[in-house]
């Protein structure tokens, strides 16, 4: 029963491991190309800009803007039944990378809303990247 009603969780042992480790420590770490400095996410072997294979995981500014959103009224995944309806947002961080996420505490945002990262524990091992309206925004 637990299996069916649980929310889906990310795996922590793949190429994105440094990202999830970063969230646990309150940082958004993404790959940066060592050759040209371009940040990228999800993880990939080569820089999509200059094709260098040298990359390092570094934190980016945990701030951005809500670009789009949608609200689920149909519960596709049983684990979310207690949250219905819930809103998914697309956030563009100031570094240019985008993440799908939620407003912490389940709010529904406006397009263009400035937001700051919230590091929200989901289990003992998993911290999710959520967002809240920026102070004063």
């Amino acid at each position, binding site marked *: 029963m637990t299996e*069916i009603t649980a*929310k*889906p*969780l*990310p*795996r922590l042992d*793949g*190429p*994105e491991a440094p990202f999830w480790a970063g969230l646990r420590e309150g940082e958004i770490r993404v790959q940066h190309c060592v050759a040209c400095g371009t940040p990228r*996410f*999800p*993880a990939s072997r080569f820089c*999509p800009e200059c094709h260098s294979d040298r990359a390092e995981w570094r934190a980016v500014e945990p701030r951005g803007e809500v*670009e*789009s*959103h*949608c*609200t*689920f*009224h*149909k519960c*596709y*995944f*049983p684990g*979310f039944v207690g*949250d219905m*309806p*819930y809103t*998914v947002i*697309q956030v*563009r961080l100031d570094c240019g*990378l*985008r*993440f*799908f*996420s*939620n407003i912490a505490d389940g709010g529904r945002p406006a*397009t263009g809303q400035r937001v700051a990262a919230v590091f929200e524990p*989901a289990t003992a091992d*998993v911290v*999710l990247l*959520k967002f809240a309206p920026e102070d004063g925004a």
Partner: protein
Amino acid sequence: MKINAAIVGTGASTFGRFLPQSQLGLAAEAFKAALEDSGLKREEIDGLSMHMGSPLGLDYDRVADGLGLNIRYVNQGWTHGRFVTNALQHAALAVSAGMAEVVACVTAISFTRERAILGGPGDIEGHREEGGTHGESPPYGLTAPAGGAAIAMQRYMARYGTTSEELAAVPMQIRRHALRNPDAIMQQELTLEDHQSSRMVVDPLHLFDCCLITDGAVVTFVTTEERARDLRQKPVRIAGMQGIRSGRDEFIFAPPGLGISQQPESDSASRPVDREVYGLAGVSRDDVQGLYTYDAFSPLVLFTLERFGFCGTGEAAGFVQNGTIGPGGRLPVNTNGGLLSEAHVAGWNHMREITRQIRGTAGDRQIPGAEVLQWGTVWGDSIIFTA
């Protein structure tokens, strides 16, 4: 290599919800109908191009074995709707290259039996670490194809001021086609009020912005133009085709430039690379008498119209008003009723309709003198069919 291929037979099973038949049972029904339609004998089918494998559909070896075929060419696509064009293109390439004489494109799917694939716990690919195939991000509840389409439509609405009432013209007009198609599951008129009062599935998408979830099979036979001339039916020539587009510009349910997921932002205007199919087919866009597209969600129709340049960027919601895409309109779209109102056979029900239209056997839905029809999708691939 020059494309030398035509559709010479088409057959379908019953379309419905929670049908008792297995996928193989549905495939057999459609296969027999296609043999009857084309006049071909089972022994003459020597190639298979499968769109959807197990568990949603069938794998090629099961089909060859189950239908008693001796096959010397096989193509099998990814188990996603997007591979519809690809499966037909590979059939055309195979007969053009002499790898097979007659390729059967077989699609037999039981969506109602495998519902958990659509954003539920059965959606293995939606849970890929680097993100799902429609932008799924399951830990945040973005777990279904409808989510990707909704987030793209919301952004389009914010950019161009498009409303849900305007979007409603897409399912309403496609429903009007379905009312003329006895095979269509949806047989009641769809009014603006019906659309607006229907429940939200993923806001901004109402129930009627989302396609049907059904079971059914369609089999399509492809052979060379020479062989086609000896057969029972008027051939439907595959005049030109362009492949699926991929790369950072692409998000499966958004036009390039809209800025969904990691897409770079631009004005989303149709580019020459989006329209190569017309030149390859030796036609112009103005020659196209009907457009067929993968209408899993109504926004995809708007995005497709813009991608191929039938209207300018941000203009599609205006373009579809006043019956433009409905029966007798300037550019009829999905005259079978599409995935929205006929059935979800992953676009193969549209291929069957294209075949009937070019043959001139589409009954009440017939586009007068249909000689040039286009299949094209929001992810950029396309086929031009001619008489």
